[in-house]
């Protein structure tokens, strides 16, 4: 009798064992505290919107999305990635906002053969000498925004430029990128302190130099400090302000307000970019998050989940066949909110870049407005160094 019952129980369980496929696991390392908290929160909202729209599935198969905060800290991120790989056995990875974190966790993921789809950073190392098949820079290569901004400044006929960045590696890359796009000689380069609060001394130099425009790469709070002080010094009346998209996105606009008006900035996406998928995305985002306009970080995160979804669909859920997954990912065969794009040899996108200007919309809201295309199809300069 007892044996009979055990057999019955086993029989009842068997179909479950046979048919329930293990869910596809995506490891997301969020940036919800620390230096990139505001941008990380934008990215999280983009991920969550895509996950919700897909009904929590990928390619129609059951999926699990692991989300943990690692606070923008490379050490903490490395520990989290090890846990994701060894304990959770993830199939895809994404999430970090900073290049320093991407550089720290990338090699670990590549060694474990786990595709890393970047929702933001595009360090030059991964575009050049350290390029890898398991890396997909879904967003952009770091230099692109700066190079595009340089071209915008040259195209608009600015002769005398002052360019400014914090004195650290990414700041130097940014200014070099700008100069590459600008092509002419810039008037003056100013390197400021990382985390600087007061910009009065630099503003006095600007007033003295009388340039046509100033280019700033001052991420996060530094940019907010600078722009507020730039405007209160009255310099916005005679000097144009140009920046990469990250210095002038919706998150910064919400923190600064009116003083941002008239700032030119460059990105591979804009919330008013005219394509079907983007309209759907922006509308859904506003509905989900109290009428907030998405930033580029939210758009990129949304794209990453959709890219994974398409790859899972193309391989019919057999994600353990990594070679097939890589082929599917590389096709970039999904409806991106920035319109169709393709990958170069280093798995960085070859795509258009746009210039946006901050304006007051008819409804009184201050927001970015798309005003033109800078590059038709831009590819980074590092692709030649990538020998795979």
């Amino acid at each position, binding site marked *: 009798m007892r044996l009979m019952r055990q057999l019955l129980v086993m029989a009842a369980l068997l179909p479950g064992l046979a048919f329930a496929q293990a869910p596809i696991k995506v490891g997301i390392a969020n940036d*919800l*505290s620390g*230096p990139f*908290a*505001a941008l*990380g*929160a934008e990215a999280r909202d983009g991920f969550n919107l895509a996950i919700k729209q897909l009904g929590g599935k990928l390619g129609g198969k059951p999926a699990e999305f692991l989300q943990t905060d690692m606070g923008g800290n490379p050490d903490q991120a490395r520990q989290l990635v090890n846990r994701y790989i060894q304990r959770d056995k993830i199939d895809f990875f994404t999430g970090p906002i900073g290049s320093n974190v991407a550089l720290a966790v990338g090699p670990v993921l590549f060694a474990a053969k786990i595709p890393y789809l970047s929702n933001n950073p595009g360090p030059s190392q991964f575009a050049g000498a350290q390029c890898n098949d398991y890396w997909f820079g879904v967003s952009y290569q770091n230099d692109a925004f700066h190079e595009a901004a340089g071209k915008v400044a040259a195209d608009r006929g600015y002769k005398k430029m002052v360019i400014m960045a914090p*004195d650290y590696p990414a700041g130097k890359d940014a200014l070099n990128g700008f100069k590459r796009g600008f092509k002419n000689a810039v008037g003056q*380069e*100013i*390197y*400021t*302190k990382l*985390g600087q*609060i*007061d910009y*009065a*001394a*630099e503003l*006095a*130099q600007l*007033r*003295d130099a009388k340039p046509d425009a100033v280019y700033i790469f001052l991420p*996060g*709070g*530094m940019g*907010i*400090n600078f722009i*507020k*002080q730039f*405007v*209160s*010094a*009255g310099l916005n009346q005679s000097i144009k302000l140009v920046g990469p998209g990250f210095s002038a996105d919706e*998150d*910064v606009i*919400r*923190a*600064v*307000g*009116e003083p941002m008006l008239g700032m030119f900035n460059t990105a591979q996406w804009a919330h008013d970019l005219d394509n079907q998928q983007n309209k759907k995305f922006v509308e859904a985002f506003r509905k989900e998050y109290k009428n907030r306009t998405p930033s580029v970080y939210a758009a990129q995160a949304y794209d990453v989940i959709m890219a994974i979804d398409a790859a899972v669909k193309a391989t019919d859920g057999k994600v353990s066949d990594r070679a097939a997954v890589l082929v599917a990912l590389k096709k970039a065969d999904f409806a991106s909110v920035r319109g169709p794009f393709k990958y170069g040899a280093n798995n960085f996108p070859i795509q258009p870049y746009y210039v946006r200007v901050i304006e007051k919309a008819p409804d009184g809201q201050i927001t970015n407005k798309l005003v033109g295309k800078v590059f038709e199809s831009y590819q980074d300069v590092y692709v030649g160094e990538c020998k795979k």
Partner: protein
Amino acid sequence: MSTTLIAEQLLNGLQFGLMLFLIAAGLTLVFGILDILNVAHGSLYMAGAYVAAQTMQVTDSFLAAVIVAAVVTGAVGLVLELVLIRRLVVRDHLAQVLGTFAIILIANDVVKMIWGPAPMMMSMPPALSGPVQLLPELLYPAYRLLIIAVGLAAALGLYLFVTRTRAGVLVRAGASNRQMATLMGVRVPLLFLGVFVLGAMLAALAGALLGPVTAIQTGMGEQILILVLVCIVIGGIGSIRGAFVGALLVGFVDTAGRAFLPALLKLFFSPAVASSVGPTLAALSIYILMAVVLVFRPSGLFPARG
């Protein structure tokens, strides 16, 4: 380099120094009287900025924003003193630093819970948002002139408070010898409470004043606290006069370093060397100043005791 540029940079140095003084005053006062290094002082500054920004968004009045920020942060300081600082006063410095450091972590997360992780907006009072013509060639932001005025007023007020009032005498008595003051009938715990709340309100005043020109975000307190610590170490920990002189020195040296050093180096070195060494040296200038001061005056320029 024109004289107007030099004049403008001097004003900038003064303004930056006075802004640091507003925060340094509270910190050094608390240290002088309570003998406790409150590293969470920066969090009170952050609280002031957030409360001011919130009030400004609701009432649209800058004056209301400053007053509400000072009152609310003062209340926060009151609770903090009664709940934590009072217990830490009798412990050693390590326990004090750890205890107040915990407050930084808690404060950052509480702010994030209430206002979210994105930086907050605080607009400038419209009347002061433009520049003022000081000299024919010299335009200076009106708002920065306000910061200079308030900073000077606060410095004068504190000076008169400490030297000319009865409460000031008690504060000095408590600072120079706590036990003796207690024996002479000074109610030291009440005095401590008053000083701590005053320090919190000064920090909030600084936060509210700086809100329109800086990013209001979590972690803004730690960023500024480092500079403020340099000021009070140079001036001599515990001394208001020291904090004033130290803050002005830091303001002038830092501004001059950033404004003139890269150009000065270009006279002696190649442009490539000057542009790479200049910013680094400018960033280091205030720490070099601190080191030099400490070599000749190990307890700062105006030590509070002895």
